[in-house]
Every structure is written in structure tokens, then in C-alpha cells.
């Protein structure tokens, strides 16, 4: 995969030759105005329902292995 990635980056490197100094970057094409909704409480998903798709639910939470391997 290293060879493939190098080949792709080589192609991408063609943009290094362009004069882009005074060009602003585009991160988003739609001109957006910030819109705030009313700050009112709404119902959210029941915890049990959300945990139905979890690989290892326990005590109303997502259980994961310990961050540190057991000694």
C-alpha cells in the first residue's frame, strides 16, 4: 500500500506548481447564516433503545475494555 499512496501523492503534488498565494481557501460551498433554534427541552432517545445496537452494554452504559492491559 505504501507504493500506491506514494503514487497518489505524486499526482496530488501537481497542485504544488500552481500560484495560489492570493486565493482564499474554500471549506464550504453554501453561504450559511448561523441560525439558532429556541432553547427548549425536547425528548431524546431512551437509553435502553440506544444501547440496543451497542456491542457490550452494561448498567445503562457502553462498556469497553480497560485502557490498561491487565498486568
Amino acid at each position: 500500500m505504501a507504493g500506491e499512496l506514494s503514487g497518489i501523492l505524486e499526482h496530488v503534488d501537481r497542485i504544488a506548481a500552481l500560484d495560489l498565494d492570493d486565493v482564499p481557501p474554500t471549506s464550504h460551498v453554501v453561504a450559511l447564516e448561523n441560525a439558532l433554534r429556541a432553547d427548549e427541552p425536547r425528548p431524546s432517545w431512551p437509553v435502553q433503545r440506544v444501547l440496543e445496537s451497542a456491542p457490550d452494554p452494561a448498567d445503562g452504559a457502553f462498556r469497553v475494555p480497560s485502557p490498561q492491559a491487565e498486568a
Partner: protein
Amino acid sequence: MSTSELLELSVARAAQRIAAGEISAGEYSEAWRGAAAGDELNAYLWRAEDDTGETEGPLGGIPVAVKDIFCTEGVPTTAASRILEGYEPLYTATAVRRLAGAGAEILGKTNMDEFAMGSSNENSAFGPVLNPWDRERVPGGSSGGSAAAVAGGLAPCAIGTDTGGSIRQPAALCGIVGLKPTYGAISRYGMIAFASSLDQCGPLTRDVTDAALLLSALQGRDPCDSTSVGIEGGVEAPRREDLAGLRFAVPSELARDQIDPGVRAVFEGTLERIERLGGEVAEAPLPHAEHGISAYYVIAPAEASSNLARYDGVRYGLREDAGDLVEMYETTRAEGFGDEVKRRIMLGTYALSSGYYEAYYGRAQRVRTKIATDFAAAFADFDFVVTPTSPSVAFRLGEKTDDPLAMYLNDFFTVPMSLAGIPAISIPAGLAAPEGGGAQLPVGFQIAAPAFAEQSLLEAAYALEREIGFDARPGG
């Protein structure tokens, strides 16, 4: 009406007849479920067993094939990835809800390149989709299942997503109509994210009228997606029969671009048809379009590397247990993601890393500005920009899997419109033999328009579609 007669109807005609009580929605839906059950193309990953019985609305009783990237409540949604195998979302994507609100029902979930990353459908964790015109060839991608289903008579219409050509290119390779609307025309809520500043939902249909009908139901502002703005004034069925007074730009650089001779011949023949309908064709420079692939394969992987961080084996989807937490993350992602997804995550994280950010991501964003500016300049003098949709007809399965860059270059003509956020449609324009010989295969003609000019785009495509009169079918 016989089953084969029902399956012959366009979506617009079927909807009219169901509304008029001339055909039964139940029989129509059953006919399509029967057709979908005969899928030999691996186009479907899941199929509905029943109809909803809905007959009201502009799409009353119409079954729609839905790309498996749209979340559907209680129905498996995988994005064709092992990492989401068995996942059933809690909610349904806004696009699918809007179709249902117009009376349509889900016929099935269609196969695709994993997380929409690919141009051949060979990156699906559940096997490639076959092109109905030649089962040794790819249907295009990433919405290959949706395109093959419509072209192969397994669905009356479908929806897909297009990030750099994923609706238009498979539509072209399968000989159907594919429309990528303006970024923001349709809500992305519930659409599994690949590259959020580029992803857009759109229809894959047999004809332009059906594309307009689906777009009309799909488009609109959605409080759940702050980037959705809808199409002001909505969308109506196109009826224009000429192109008088309309100006079509062909990129000046096209003459030296690598295009198969058969595709070029169909493209040039289509330009003559535009002139016959009263349209004017002239060259216009789009000097930065050729850098579209470079910019796209930095921006899209960068956004993907961030979006795909959520698949970590904790909240849903696959978990591979191994040692401690970090090992669990690593093993889950190593087992769950396919090669192309890993390739793009690595490209994206590399392009965003502190030492390379400006050289890659920063520059790619500036190239994006240049491409958008080129289009804006062209649209000052022209109504549309036209190109072949794809430089070749459908290629053979396995032909480009060992060369990712060759695969990426397939998107040469579709990526610039995605970067500029503008709408573009691919319509079937004729047939051409593949390089190296073989039976003739469909060629797509791409028309791009200024942002939110979907109605005039559909009108022009409709007039041209009538003039072309494409009536070839797979296997016939």
C-alpha cells in the same frame, strides 16, 4: 395489465395511473418485489417483503431502491462495510422520509462501494455488483447497486449519493439518468457521512422526467441539517422541447483530455444534436478543472478520516475484542474496514498532519476556490457546461483494482462539479464499443448548471433526451 407491462411504465406514468385508480398499487409493488427477488447482479443487500399500501401523494405506491448508505429505522444499514454489518439504525434519513411522505416505499437497500469510496463497486464488503449490460464489467460506483438495479429492471427508480461522481458515473456506465443536485438541495441527515462538504443525495432513474419527480419530493430545508436549504420554487416536470437561445460550454481543455475514441464520438454527436435543437455550443476555458482530482483526493479523504473516527467498536457495529482499549480500537478497525477505506483514512490523516497541512489540505482548498471561480466565469457567458460523464465505457471487473490512481482518474469529469457544489446530470447519449473491442456499452453525457438551477438543467436534459431517443436495453 400484465406484470411485464407494469414494469415497462415509467415512474411518472405509473404514479399517474395509480392515482387515477387504473392500476393497483399493490399489484405494481408486488410486480417490482418479484423483479427485485430475481436479482442476479448482487445489486441488493436487503429487500422488502411487503408493501406499505400507501397510494396517496405524488409518488403514491412507487417502490424505490435506496442505497445502503441511508439510515432506515429497523432495517439493516451497512454502507457495504463489515464494520456496520448487522447494524439497524434507530431512525430514518430525511431523504427517505421525504420519499415516504410523498407516498413512496422502500423496495430494498442497494449495494455500493464501502462508505461510498470507489468508482466500480468492487470495494463492497459484500461482493461487487455486476453491470447488467455485460456481467464481466463493473456498473460504476459508488452507487453501483442503485444504477444496476434501475438499468437491470430490478427497480423502477433509486436514490444514491454523489461525493465526486458516485451517482453520475454509475448512471453513465449503466445507461440511465443520474442527477447530483446542488450541495444543500437535499438534507444529508441520516446519510452516512463520507466527505461532508461534498456529499449529496440524488435520484437514479430511467428518464429525466422521473428524476425531476424524485428530486421534487427529496429537496427541501431540514432543521436536522443546517447545510440544507432546498430549491427555491421547488421542481416541476420538465416540458421544454428545444434549446433555442441556450449556450453550452465545452471546456477548451477537453481536446487534449484522455477520452476513449468511442466516447468522444458519442459526445461530439450529442453536441451536434444540441445545435440541431437551436442551442449554441462553444469552447470556454476551465483551466483548473484538471486539478480537480488532486484537490478532491486530499479534501475527501481528509473529511473521511475525521468522519470515520466514529467507528470504534464502542457504540454500534463491529467489535473485535483484543487486549486493552487501544488494541480493541485497532483490531476492530483493522478487521472492519476494507483496503480502500484504510487507504483514504491514511491519505486524509497524512494531509491533515501538522507538517503537511498547508502543502496538501490548505492548497487543495485553494484549488477548490479556483475551480469554483472557473465555473462562475463560464456561467457568466453560458447556461451550461457539458462533458462526457466518464472517459470510458464500463471497464472489466478487476481491470483497475490494482491501480487506485487509474480508478480515481475515472472521476476526472465529475469531480470538478462536486468541488464547486453545482448540479450536474448524466443522461444516456448512445453506445460505444469498449477499447480493445467487445459489445457496445452505454455512454453518458454530463450537463452542469449554476447552483440551484436544477429546473433549467432538467428542462435542457429533457429536450436533449427526446432528441437522442436512447432506447437500447441491456441484453437487447
